[in-house]
């Protein structure tokens, strides 16, 4: 089965639509959303509703720190994110707010674990930024293959029993065989706010039959998404960073 794994949509409707279309065109049969559906972007209600619709169709949808912060003011954020969050709260209806608040923090399916941030303490929202972080994550879970987001930069870590962690920066559109005798942690890039210098929306397709993971990038209408952020009166830096992919 071909599973599309998306993370950090961040209320970017244009990017979300482009990724969904690309995943469907590639034959994705299942969707997994690793959280942060809202925050930063100008279309939180639309994106949350779309996520709800996917969940109804059987998608796994998880909670990220921005989704959590909508209903939980104690989640700490930087000033820009806080401004965006205050705006986001006003845009969301009661139904989508309830949907976001009720999302699970992690999901396990077969030998795969899905979670928004580091699996050792999912509610603490720690980033997986390097091999040490990956080691902590892998030590805390038993899944052979796990997926997280939160970082906005794609990465892939693997380890053999007793071995060290091998970090790798994935190359788009090159399937990587996740060798069965190893454990793997795939950090998804962001759909709605990439930060690896490439503005194209990021996601991945995981083929469960042959355990091949393919990181992908999709071009989308960055200008339109940025223009909506400005028009909504959100911090201008949030619009500018979309074009830079930083």
């Amino acid at each position: 089965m071909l599973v599309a794994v998306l993370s950090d949509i961040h209320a970017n409707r244009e990017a979300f639509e482009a990724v969904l279309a690309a995943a469907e065109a590639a034959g994705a049969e299942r969707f997994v959303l690793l959280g942060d559906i809202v925050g930063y972007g100008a279309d939180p209600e639309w994106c949350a509703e779309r996520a709800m619709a996917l969940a109804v169709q059987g998608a796994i949808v998880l909670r990220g720190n921005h989704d959590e912060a909508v209903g939980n003011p104690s989640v700490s954020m930087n000033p820009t994110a806080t401004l965006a969050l205050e705006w986001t709260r006003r845009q969301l209806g009661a139904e989508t707010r309830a949907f976001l608040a009720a999302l699970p923090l992690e999901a396990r399916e077969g030998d795969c674990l899905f979670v928004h941030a580091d699996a050792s303490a999912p509610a603490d929202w720690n980033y997986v930024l390097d091999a040490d972080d990956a080691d902590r994550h892998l030590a805390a879970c038993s899944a052979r293959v796990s997926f997280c987001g939160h970082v906005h930069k794609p990465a892939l870590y693997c380890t053999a029993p007793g071995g060290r962690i091998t970090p790798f920066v994935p190359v788009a559109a090159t399937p990587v065989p996740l060798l069965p005798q190893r454990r793997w942690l795939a950090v998804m890039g962001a759909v709605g706010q990439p930060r690896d210098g490439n503005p194209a929306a990021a996601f991945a397709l995981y083929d469960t039959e042959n355990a091949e993971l393919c990181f992908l990038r999709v071009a989308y209408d960055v200008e339109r998404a940025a223009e909506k952020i400005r028009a909504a009166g959100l911090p201008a830096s949030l619009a500018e960073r979309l074009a830079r992919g930083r």
Partner: protein
Amino acid sequence: MVKARLKPGDVVDGFLIEDIAHNGGMARIWTVSRPDVDFPILMKVPVIGEGDDPAAIVGFEMEQMILPRLSGPHVPRFVANGDFATLPYIVMERLPGTSLYPLLERLPLPPEEVAAIGAKVAVALDSLHHQHVVHLDLKPSNVMFRESGEAVLIDYGLARHIHLPDLMDEQFRLPYGTAPYMAPEQVLGTRSDFRSDLFALGVMLYFFSTGERPFGDPQRLKGLKRRLWRDPLPPRARNAAIPPALQEVILRCLEVNPAWRYPSAAQLALDLQDLSAVKLTARAEKMKRDPFSVVVRRRFNPVTIETVKPRAAEAQLANAPIVAVAVDLAAGAPDLAEAMRKTVARIVENTPDARIACINVLKINRIAIDTSLDEEGRNKHVLRLVALRTWSTGLPAPGGGITFHVLEAVSPADAILEYARENHVDHIVMGARAESAMRSMLGSVSGEVAAHAPCTVTVVRSRPAAQ
């Protein structure tokens, strides 16, 4: 893990185990067959026991990962991978004959034979590098040949695919490779530079042409590191029959700094195919090792190794295209010639390590006994070469050098296409013939080349003045 002990007659995943072909320390190799596979195949099964070198297992995993992603005549065809949970194996094409290893019994080889073997191996490396793979264990026992003549590189246990995670990296502190053939940067732990394979090929060429290994066969890391500062005895000092051009090629491959070697295997292949076109430098005439004072200085102030990270490795290779510039000297249109030179200049500016081959086709008659063998014919050929050189005056010097070739052929388009295929040309630049009755009768050479070329083709036109 199931420890299956295979024996002839066993059937594994549909493969009938026939005979043991090789019983090595790291792997057993069986000849096998399966009814739906219509070419000879073998099964490689790793020998995994307690206390074994973990690198052997990782190497096997790497080979399972890389081999299915390779194609073309220069690699063994991949058939199947066996699961580690049951029985790990790789089934692949069995190549005829032996590797280059038995050749070591009759060294030194004549220089022409060394160059011919080297050219074939370089072409195979070029194919591998363009599939994003550095072999990192090139040596005589890993080179085989097809009956059609192409070199085939085997054993990807130490190889690195630039687009896939490197399981060897980080895992082990010691550098992995085969001591006599390892490039200096590989000794220091770099596993992502395509030019490391050119160093290994240089060691092979040196060994084949002199009968001696340039850096011996050190058994410890300290001995391996010697090649960072101690230069080998020049090949001609060991074997006077080696021409200066071959020594030039070998010593360039053996440069400590990868940036001083050939920028691509394709450019190395070009030189090995035609030693007469090799640009000679001080390397060609060197007859002694560097003096003691120089070596001591280098020992404590090592040569800078300008190696590249995985991301930059492909950019480095892309900077070194082979560009064939097909010049129609008869056209005589000065505007077109100028436009062609400008196009070539821009290519050199953008890809500074390019190799430029200026070619001109000398048309010969289809049936009539041609004059090309007589004095007049030779003169024609030489005159064309002179004209080509004159045409190229003022072109910027590309890093890969510039060469001139007059091809004698009945059909210019066929000659250009054949040259491009044989020399692994990346880019053809040619002028469009002006509108004329001749063109409408004969068709356009550039059109035919553009339609059938194995690479990018730029057709240059000078813009006509406004009517």
